C-alpha cells in the first residue's frame, strides 16, 4: 500500500513530545540517582523512551517474586481454566493426536501458542511455572508499555511512577499474571497497542502507516488472538487513528490508509482464526456457534434463569462496577474517577484524552457482553451471588492506572506549589492502605482471589486424586475425559499428555471408549454422572460409556476413590505392590 509522506508536523499542545512537556532535567545533575530520575521522567526522543528497560526489569522482578509465592502455595493452579490452558498448550505437541487442532475453539489460540515451548518441559508444565514465565514477561511488557504511553502523553516522572504503582501494586493483577489465565497476554497486548498508538499519534514527525502497523497493529493482532475484548479495541483504535489523521488536516484518503495499516494485522489474525475454524471444524464461525462456544456456555445459565444481566444494563453496570471495585480497589478507583473528571474538563476530547478513553474499550465491551447475555459474571451483587468470571475486569486496571496518573500530572501542573514528593507519597500511602485492607481478608475483599479460593475448594478432591495418580502412575495410558466437569487437572497429575486418551485425541478416544481394556491401563472418571454442569460438554463421556459397558467392571478395579471420582486400574496388569497396601485409600 502507498505510504504517503507529508511535511513534518508543527508542535501543538496536544503533542507533548514536541511541546516538551514532562519533567525538565535539572541542570547539573547530582549523581546517578538524580540522573536516573531525570531520565525516568524525560521526554521521549524519537523511538527512545528513557527508563523503559528499567521499568521492564523491575516489573519482571516483581512478577518473579509473585510467581515464587503462588507456586510455593500452589495457588497458581487454583483456577480450573488455568490448568486447562496449560493442558491445551501442552497437547499441541505432546498428545496421541498432536497438531494445531488441539487449540480447539473454546479459547483464542495465542496464549496457548506462547506457552507451547515452555510446557514441553514436564516440570514447568506440572508446577505451572511455564505460565509464571510467560506471565512475568507479559507483566514486564505491560508495565513498560504503560510507562511509554504515559511518556508519550507528556506525564512527568511522578505521574508515571504513580501509574506504574497502580498497575504493579495490585495483588489481583499480580496473581493473575502468575497463572495460565489469558489476562496476562491480553493486558500486555492492549497496553502495547496503546503504546504503539501513542507513539504514532504524538510523534513530532509524521510517521508512516507501516510504523502504525508494526508498533500498534501487531500488538492488536496479538490481542485479537487472545480475547474478544481486543476485537473491540481494534474498532475503537481504528476510530482513534481516523480522528487523529483528520484533525491533522490530512486527507480522507490518508485516514483510510492509516486505518487500514493499523487494522491490517488484526484483520489477518481474524482471517487466520476463521480459516482455522473452517479447516478443522468445517465452520468458520464454530467458535461462535459450536458446542464449546460462549453462546453454548451461557445457554445453560439462561435455561437455569441465572443470566440476569441479559437485557439489564443497570444490573450489568452494578455487577461490573462491584467487580471493578473489588479488583482495582476503592482508592485507585476513586482517584481514577476524579482523574476522569479532571481530564475531561481540561482535555475535553483531545487526542490525549481519546487515547486514555481507548484504554476503557475492554470495559465497554465487557458491559456490552453482560447486557447482551454473551457473558456471565457473578459476585456479591449479582443474582445469585458468588464469585465467577470477575477476573475479566482486570483489563480495566490499565485504564484506572492511566486516569490516576493523569490526575497526578494535572494536579502538579495546576498547583505548582505542590511539591513532587508529598504528592507521590500521599498516593503511595493511599495505595499501601488499600493493599493493607485487602490483605486483611483477601478471600473476601478481592473477588479474583475469592474465585481462586473457590476453585481451590472445588478442585480439592480432584487435585487430591490427581496427586495420588501422579505418585502411582506406572505407565500404560490413561483413559480420562479431561473436558468433563473438574477433570482438567492434567498439570497436577503431572504425566506427559501423550499418555492420555481423551476427547482431544479424537478417534483414538472413541476407540479407547469402545475397548478400554485394549488401550489404557488406567481409567479416571466420575463414578456418578455429572449433573451440575456449565455446559453439556461438561458431561463425563467415560462415565457415559462405562456405565453401559458390563465388561468394564470385570476388566478394571477401583484403586482410588474420593468424592464422586474414581481411579480404576486394569486388572490384568500386575500391581507391585498392590494398591491397597500403597495408598490406604478405599475402593
Amino acid at each position: 500500500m502507498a505510504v504517503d509522506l507529508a511535511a513534518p508536523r508543527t508542535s501543538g499542545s496536544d503533542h507533548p513530545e514536541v511541546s516538551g512537556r514532562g519533567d525538565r532535567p535539572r541542570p547539573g545533575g547530582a549523581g546517578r540517582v538524580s540522573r536516573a530520575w531525570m531520565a525516568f521522567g524525560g521526554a521521549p526522543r524519537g523511538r527512545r523512551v528513557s527508563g523503559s528497560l528499567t521499568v521492564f526489569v523491575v516489573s519482571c522482578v516483581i512478577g518473579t517474586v509473585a510467581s515464587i509465592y503462588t507456586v510455593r502455595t500452589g495457588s497458581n493452579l487454583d483456577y480450573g481454566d488455568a490448568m486447562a490452558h496449560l493442558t491445551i498448550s501442552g497437547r499441541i505437541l505432546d498428545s496421541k493426536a498432536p497438531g494445531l487442532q488441539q487449540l480447539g475453539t473454546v479459547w483464542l489460540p495465542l496464549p496457548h501458542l506462547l506457552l507451547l515451548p515452555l510446557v514441553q518441559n514436564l516440570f514447568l508444565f506440572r508446577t505451572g511455572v511455564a505460565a509464571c514465565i510467560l506471565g512475568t514477561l507479559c507483566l514486564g511488557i505491560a508495565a513498560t508499555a504503560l510507562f511509554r504511553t504515559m511518556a508519550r502523553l507528556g506525564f512527568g516522572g511522578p505521574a508515571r511512577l504513580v501509574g506504574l504503582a497502580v498497575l504493579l501494586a495490585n495483588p489481583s493483577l499480580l496473581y493473575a499474571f502468575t497463572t495460565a489465565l489469558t489476562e496476562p497476554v491480553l493486558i500486555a497486548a492492549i497496553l502495547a497497542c496503546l503504546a504503539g498508538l501513542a507513539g504514532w499519534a504524538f510523534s513530532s514527525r509524521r510517521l508512516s502507516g507501516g510504523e502504525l502497523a508494526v508498533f500498534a497493529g501487531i500488538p492488536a493482532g496479538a490481542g485479537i488472538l487472545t480475547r474478544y475484548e481486543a476485537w473491540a479495541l481494534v474498532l475503537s483504535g481504528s476510530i482513534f487513528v481516523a480522528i487523529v489523521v483528520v484533525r491533522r488536516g490530512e486527507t480522507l484518503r490518508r485516514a483510510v490508509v492509516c486505518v487500514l495499516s493499523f487494522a491490517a494485522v488484526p484483520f489477518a489474525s481474524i482471517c487466520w482464526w476463521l480459516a482455522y475454524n473452517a479447516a478443522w471444524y468445517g465452520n468458520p464461525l464454530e467458535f461462535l456457534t459450536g458446542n464449546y462456544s460462549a453462546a453454548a456456555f451461557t445457554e445453560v445459565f439462561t435455561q437455569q434463569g441465572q443470566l440476569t444481566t441479559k437485557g439489564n444494563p443497570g444490573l450489568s453496570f452494578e455487577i461490573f462496577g462491584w467487580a471493578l471495585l473489588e479488583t482495582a480497589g476503592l482508592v485507585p478507583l476513586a482517584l481514577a474517577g476524579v482523574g476522569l473528571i479532571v481530564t475531561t474538563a481540561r482535555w475535553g476530547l483531545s487526542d490525549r484524552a481519546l487515547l486514555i478513553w481507548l484504554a476503557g474499550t475492554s470495559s465497554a465491551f465487557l458491559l456490552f457482553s453482560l447486557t447482551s447475555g454473551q457473558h456471565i459474571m457473578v459476585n456479591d451483587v449479582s443474582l445469585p451471588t458468588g464469585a465467577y468470571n470477575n477476573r475479566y475486569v482486570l483489563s480495566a486496571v490499565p485504564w484506572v492506572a492511566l486516569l490516576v496518573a493523569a490526575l497526578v500530572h494535572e494536579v502538579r501542573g495546576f498547583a505548582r506549589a505542590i511539591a513532587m514528593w508529598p504528592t507521590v507519597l500521599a498516593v503511595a500511602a493511599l495505595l499501601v492502605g488499600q493493599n493493607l485492607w485487602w490483605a486483611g481478608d483477601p478471600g473476601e475483599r478481592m473477588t479474583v482471589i475469592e474465585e481462586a479460593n473457590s476453585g481451590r475448594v472445588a478442585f480439592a478432591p480432584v487435585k487430591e486424586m490427581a496427586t495420588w495418580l501422579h505418585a502411582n502412575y506406572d505407565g500404560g495410558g490413561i483413559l480420562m475425559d479431561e473436558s468433563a466437569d473438574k477433570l482438567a487437572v492434567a498439570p497436577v497429575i503431572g504425566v506427559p499428555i501423550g499418555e492420555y486418551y481423551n476427547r482431544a485425541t479424537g478417534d483414538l478416544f472413541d476407540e479407547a471408549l469402545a475397548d478400554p481394556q485394549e488401550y489404557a491401563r488406567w481409567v479416571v472418571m466420575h463414578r456418578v454422572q455429572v449433573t451440575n454442569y456449565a455446559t453439556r460438554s461438561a458431561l463425563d463421556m467415560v462415565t457415559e460409556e462405562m456405565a453401559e459397558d458390563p465388561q468394564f467392571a470385570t476388566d478394571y478395579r477401583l484403586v482410588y476413590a474420593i468424592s464422586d471420582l474414581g481411579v480404576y486400574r486394569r486388572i490384568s496388569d500386575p500391581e507391585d505392590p498392590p494398591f491397597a497396601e500403597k495408598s490406604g485409600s478405599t475402593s
Partner: protein
Amino acid sequence: MRAPLEIGQSLLSSGLITEDQLEAALLRQRTEGGHLGHQLVLGGAIGRRELFDALAEQWGAPRVDLIAEPPDHDLVQAVSYPVALREGWVPWKRDGDQLIVATTVAPTRAVEERVLELCGPAELSFRVTTSWDLWRAIEAAHRSTLLFESQDRLATERPLSSALEGLTRWQRWSPVVVVLLVLVGIVLSPRTGFVLVLAGANVVFSAAILFKTLAAVLVPWRRAHQSRLRHAEVRERQRRGLPPIWRQRRADADLPTYTILIPVYNEANVVAKVVENIGSLDYPKSKLDVMLLLEADDEETIAVARAMKPPEYVRLVVVPPGKPQTKPRACNYGLALARGEFAVIFDAEDRPDRDQLRQAVAAFDRDDLERAEGLSTKNPLAVVQASLYYYNADYNVLTRMFAIEYAHWFEAMLPGMDAAGLPLPLGGTSNHFRVSALQSMGAWDPYNVTEDADAGLRASVQGFRVAVIESGTGEEACSQTAAWIRQRTRWIKGYLVTSAVNTRHPLRFARQVGVRGVVGMVGLIMATPLAFLAYPLALGFTAATYIGVQFIGLDLPAWVVGTSITTFLFGNAMMIVSAAIAATWRYNWRIGAFAIFTPVYWLLHSVAAWRALYQLVRDPHRWEKTPHGLTEDYESDAHV
C-alpha cells in the same frame, strides 16, 4: 615564455591577487602538485577567465572565446577528442596557410611539433582559451562520436555483451515450453504436476537462500584469513628489515586525478547537495574531476545546477538527447570526457566516507604491488566496491527493511563472495574503476537497467577482478512503497537481463568464468529473481498447510508437505537471522529487529519480480527513475 612562478608575480603586480592568496596557492601546489594558476582558481583567488587572460598575455597569444567562436568543424576532426582533451589544445581555424590553434597549455616547441604531427605541416599561430571552453568545444565538435561511444559502441563492437538484442530465441521460448509442459502435466496428473511445481519452487527458493546465507557465513573466515595474511606479512617485512606495516598512502602530489561521475535526472531538489557531499572528501581538489551529468530535457535540474555556481573542479555536462535515455548512457558520455586515472559513480545525495577515494587508490596500488612482486596470482583488479548504508534507515518500516537488506548485502554477502572468489555484482554507486580497464571492458551497457551488476560480471568474464573496500557511502533509502516497487522492478529486470546476456552461450560463459563464476551467476543473478517469482507459491502453500487444509483437495505426499514447510520456514529463519546480525552490526538492534519482517518484505519483492517479468517481455530497456529527496533532511543516528 616566463617561468610559472612569474604568473603568480604577474597576477600579484596586476593587483588581481594578494600576497596571502599567492602564498596559499603556492602551499597547495607544493603539497598537491599541479599548476599554480589552477590552484589560484580553485582557491577562489581569481576567476578562470582572469587566469587565462594573464596567461594569454604571458604567452603572447590573444585569448579566444571558443563558445562564441567555435572551432572549424572539419579542422577539429583531425584530432580525436581523447587526444585533444589530453593534449589541451584544438585546431581552431585556418587563415590561408596559417593554422590557428586554441590552447590551454603553453605553446612550447614540443606542443608545436605535436600539432604539426597531428595536423600536418602549416604555419602555426596560437590563441589562448580557457580549459572550460576547450572541453566544451571538443564535446560539441565530437558530439556524434561521443554519442556513439555512450550508447552504441558496446552493442556494435560486442553485441553478445550488450542487452540491446534482448533475449535470444531459445531464451524466449524455453520458459514458454517449460510452462506449457507443467500445465500439460497438471492436466494429465494434477497430483504429480503440482508436486513437480512445488518441488521446483522449493529448489529455486532453497538455492537463493543457501547462496545468500553461505556467502554471509564466509565473512568470519574471510576476516580471519585476512588477519592471518596481515600477520604473516608483518613478520616477513620485519625479517626483511622493512617497516612492519605497508602503508601506501601517496603524498597528495602523487595522487592521480580522480573522475567522479554524478548522473542526475529530475533531481532539482537534491542536486544542490552535491557540492557539500563531494566537497567533504579528503582528496586534493586539484586532483578531482567531478562531472554532474544532466539530461538535455531536464531543464529544471540544469537551471538549479547552474544557479548553484559549482566550484572549479565540478563540470556541468549536459548529455545530448538519445536512446536509450539511461543512467549508464550518461555515465558513458561522461567517461569519454574524463580526465582521471580512476573513476567512480556517486548519486547526487550520496555521502561517501571522507577517505574513500584514498582507500580506493590504496587498494589499486596494493594490487599493483602484489602483482609486481609476484605475490598474487589473482586477476588484475579493475573495480573496487565500497559498502552502502542508509542515513535515513529508521525513517519508516520500508527504509528499515531496505537498510537491513543492504547491510546483509554489503556487510555479509559481498565480502563473503569476495572471500570465495566469486564474481561480484556491483552496487549502483561507489564503485571505483580503473578507467583504462573500464574502457577496455566496453564501459557500461546503456541497454541494461542494472548496468552495475552487468559491469561486475563482464569484468570477471574479461579476466578482471572486483574487490570490496572497507569504506562506506551513505545513501537515502527509498521511503515510498510505490517508488520502491518501481526501483526494485528495474533491479530484478536487470538481473534477468544480465542473466540472459551472459547465458546466450552458456558453455562459453562457463569457460570464461570458471566454476566459481557459474556458481555466482546461478546462485545469485539467476536464482534471486526466480526465487522472488516462486515466493508467493511457496508462501501460499505453507500458509495453507499451516492452517491444516488439504490444498486444492490434493492429497500430497507427506514428504512433499514436510519438505516444503521445512524449506520455507528454515530458509526464512536463516535469512532473518543472518540479516538481523548484519543489520545490528551495521546499525543497531532497533534496526536489526525488523529483520523478522523479511518474509513480508519479500512479498514486495515478488510484486516487483512479476512486474519485472512483464516488462522484460514488453519493455526491457525501460528505466523507471527512483525519486530522491523524499525524506527531506531526515537523518537517523542509527548508522553512526
